[in-house]
């Protein structure tokens, strides 16, 4: 798997902000620091929790997660871990922003693509949902909907996203989720030849371009809430040679006519919304499908270990310290039930093996998670 390397050859596409020597080393440092926080400091906290949990579990407490948190707060290393977790994330964006701002002019020039294959439709009157504007998701300054008329917020998200994933999601292309969704599609419908495909919550198009790669004949659409992100997504897709139609709208209710797509999918969107919005998004994906069409919603591994108090606390902390508005809601939902309520048939829930190329990847889908980054949770259904 291609990680993040210092080599120039590792650049995935011309739109990605190119760091100087120092900026790159700083970004790699932040990446390493995040790994240290997650893989060295966090396991120690898990061990501390393991010592405390039996007493809490035995006490018949009504709020075991709060109790655990309270008890852990008396350990200094617990608070240190949390502040470093937050600080390393803030440092990540700071490092990326410097690098993007320095080359703002070049990026704008690159974004002015002649004779694009795809399109970009922005809505100046668009109002982003509360859960997007309430806090900066992932602590990205300004948030997803931030727009100053440039492509810069998108550029920050692209470079930051690749570093944020620690190079484990397809290096600088950061596109394994999209490919995994396509691999799932071809697992459940090996002969499908979709005419129109929609990626809901496409961000800067990392998950959208794979649909165009796997189905070059299809008309591929991507929607999201942020104008800067979409401007950047458009330029990025063009530079990657993918024809994609990007538009600014909410996945909860789009302007597309009903029954106008063969495939509608989303990748790691639901945990950044709200429980109600997630239901609306599933319903909208159902409305947009032609009879027989397929919807796919991909998420991070669910909290199957519910009842494990430490897992619950750790997920609460992730939501709180990394601004994930619906982390718990999305990871504890009963997707089979939600998909049925949305009117789907042929419903599946499980784990799709991570695909580097959706078309050629092994079609591996099963009940058990193969671990973070090795497989993704997927629910799918037919209209």
């Amino acid at each position: 798997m291609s990680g993040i390397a210092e080599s120039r050859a590792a650049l995935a596409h011309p739109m990605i902000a190119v760091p100087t020597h120092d900026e790159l080393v700083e970004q790699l440092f932040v990446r390493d620091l995040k790994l240290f926080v997650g893989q060295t400091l966090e396991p120690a906290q898990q061990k501390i929790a393991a010592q405390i949990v039996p007493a809490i579990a035995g006490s018949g407490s009504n709020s075991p997660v709060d109790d655990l948190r309270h008890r852990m707060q008396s350990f200094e290393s617990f608070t240190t871990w949390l502040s470093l977790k937050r600080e390393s994330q803030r440092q990540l964006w700071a490092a990326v922003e410097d690098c993007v701002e320095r080359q703002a002019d070049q990026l704008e020039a690159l974004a002015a693509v002649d004779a694009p294959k795809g399109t970009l439709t922005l809505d100046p009157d668009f109002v982003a949902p509360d859960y997007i504007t309430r806090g900066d998701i992932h602590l990205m300054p300004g948030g997803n909907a931030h727009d100053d008329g440039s492509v810069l917020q998108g550029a920050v998200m692209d470079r930051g996203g690749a570093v944020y994933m620690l190079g484990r999601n397809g290096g600088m292309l950061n596109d394994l989720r999209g490919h995994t969704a396509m691999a799932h599609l071809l697992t459940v419908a090996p002969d499908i030849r979709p005419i129109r495909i929609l990626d809901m919550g496409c961000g800067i198009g990392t998950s959208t371009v794979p649909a165009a790669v796997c189905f070059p004949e299809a008309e591929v659409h991507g929607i999201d809430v942020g104008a800067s992100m979409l401007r950047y997504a458009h330029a990025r897709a063009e530079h990657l040679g993918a024809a994609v139609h990007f538009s600014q709208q909410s996945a909860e209710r789009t302007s597309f006519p009903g029954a106008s797509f063969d495939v509608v999918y989303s990748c790691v969107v639901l945990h950044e919304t709200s429980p109600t919005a997630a239901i609306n998004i599933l319903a909208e994906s159902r409305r947009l499908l032609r009879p027989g069409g397929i919807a796919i919603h991909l998420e991070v591994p669910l909290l199957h270990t519910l009842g494990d108090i430490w897992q619950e606390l750790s997920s609460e902390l992730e939501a709180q310290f990394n601004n994930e508005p619906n982390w718990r809601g999305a990871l504890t939902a009963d997707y089979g039930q939600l998909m049925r309520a949305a009117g789907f048939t042929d419903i599946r829930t499980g784990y799709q093996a991570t695909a580097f190329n959706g078309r050629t990847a092994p079609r591996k889908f099963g009940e058990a998670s193969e671990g973070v980054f090795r497989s993704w949770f997927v629910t799918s259904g037919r209209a």
Partner: protein
Amino acid sequence: MIVSLASEVTVLRARLDTCERLLVAAQVLAPGAVDSFSPDAAAQAERDGLRQHTLNKVFRPLQEAAMADVAAASRPIAGKEIQA
């Protein structure tokens, strides 16, 4: 502590910058050579190791403090002592 560290790093940076400028002036380095440097696989591995080494060294006290807390938590009555 952090103030003196910051001042030390600032001095270090200035000195490195001086070196680079002198090397460019003496035509040992082309302008921008450092910024366009692209390590090969072996150099990359060594540089990854260097970064890792520094990180572990600087943050080792945090790891040790965490391990001490783990040890304290596993002593039966230690939880109370810590809270006191």
